[in-house]
């Protein structure tokens, strides 16, 4: 690694160094810069025009080009490679609260039936919520539960694990651990503890959810 040139030094850095500096500035800046903008950032005595000219030559025929727009400069990917960038346009959409809660319940209690999800959330699960999770590929159908009505169950997928950086759904922290990690703000009111224990039992009973792993 080269030493950082002292910006206050009298003598301008060598041209090769000036070119690197311009390259780094143009790369990191979030908008095109005029030659004057660039000069203002460089040490005294630099020849910005020459550095820009050399940089432009260096990038000729590369995957990246130095473009001039008006009197400003920016580094851009080569226009002929635009087709490579097709997969890039990503619109971010935040998952709805209903969806994230449903997803959380499935992740923590899988395999989980719709009824179980509704029971924990306390409201009906809309068709669209599960559809969305299925479509995202984060949830899939599991085995039917061997109980009256043989309801379908939902489980989380490998994609889900990948997206959330988990090795397995079993690695999700349980309530106690969430609390210990400071992720859980409200603590159950005294006297609510029994209620909570019952709930867990109700779930663990015929269902054999993952909760047993987490609650001890």
């Amino acid at each position, binding site marked *: 690694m080269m030493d950082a040139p002292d910006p206050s030094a009298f003598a301008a850095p060598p041209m090769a160094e000036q070119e690197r500096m311009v390259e*780094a500035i143009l*790369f*990191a*800046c*979030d*908008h095109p810069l005029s030659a004057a903008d660039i000069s203002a950032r460089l040490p005294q005595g630099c020849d910005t025009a020459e550095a820009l000219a050399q940089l432009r030559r260096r990038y000729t025929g590369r995957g990246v080009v130095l473009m001039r727009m008006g009197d400003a400069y*920016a580094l*851009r*990917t080569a226009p002929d490679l635009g087709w490579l*960038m*097709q*997969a*890039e*346009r*990503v*619109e*971010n*959409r*935040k*998952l709805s609260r209903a*969806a*994230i*809660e449903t*997803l*959380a*319940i499935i*992740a*923590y209690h899988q395999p989980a039936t719709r*009824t179980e999800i509704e*029971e*924990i*959330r*306390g*409201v009906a699960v809309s068709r669209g919520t599960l559809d969305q999770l299925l479509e*995202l590929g984060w949830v899939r159908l599991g085995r039917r539960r061997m109980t*009256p*009505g*043989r*309801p379908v169950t939902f489980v989380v997928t490998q994609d889900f694990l990948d*997206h*959330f*950086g988990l090795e397995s759904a079993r690695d*999700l*922290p349980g*309530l*106690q*651990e*969430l*609390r*210990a990690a400071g*992720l*859980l*703000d*409200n*603590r*159950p009111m005294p006297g*609510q503890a029994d*209620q*909570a224990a019952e709930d867990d039992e*109700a779930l663990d009973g015929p269902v054999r959810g993952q909760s047993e792993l987490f609650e001890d």
Partner: protein
Amino acid sequence: MSDDWDNIDDRRAAEALIVDVDGFEGPLDLLLTLSRSQKVDLRRVSVLQLSEQYLNFIEQARSLRIELAADYLVMAAWLAYLKSRLLLPPDPAEDGPSGEDLAAHLAWQLERLQAMRDVAARLMGRDQKGRDFFVRGQPEAVAITRKTETQASLLDLMRAYARLRTRDEFRPYAFNRSDIYALEAALERLARLLPVSQDWASLQQFLPEGWGKAGQRRRSALASTFAASLELAKQGKVEMRQADAFAPVQLRGRETP
């Protein structure tokens, strides 16, 4: 581990106190600071001397009526024990590790803590993104195809779950699943049974096992099964009849042409 999680409250309370003990972060931190006064390599630190220094410190804190966190007192008790093991000739009748072994372990723990602090400082001294090196300022997204990426982080997920499991008191609507027979379940059951029941049979006969007795369970099963039979009748898979008002409802499977 469960112990650790259970008394988290106590520990949090203890933590608040620790901060008050002259800014030391726990007994190990205090020991490490004291050991510096010996001005030797941590590997050659005199644990005996260190124990005395620690016990003196605790004694002093007590005389100043500084309230000490339990951790500090536990460490003090342990060091007092260690001191006695180091000073007294070994009792051949006594099992267990020697005073030297215990002292060596403590020295190792201190060395390890110091080592972690050193590397933590080296880590933070590295070139850091956004301070020493920088990412592309104008990421390009010249796409033709649009892809919607749904954002949700693991933290969102864990918080959602934590929120759900701790708001029982606010539950607007909940029911006990064991006494509810879902419509989907009834639909499935009927659809399965009908092809083999070509004779008229009363609705009650289609109730699932264990649901026909009485009370809420029966009501739920009856309602769901009835609703399911209406749905199947609409689809032309079942025929229904009723002799009179309040007479038993009868149904039979219908061969689909």
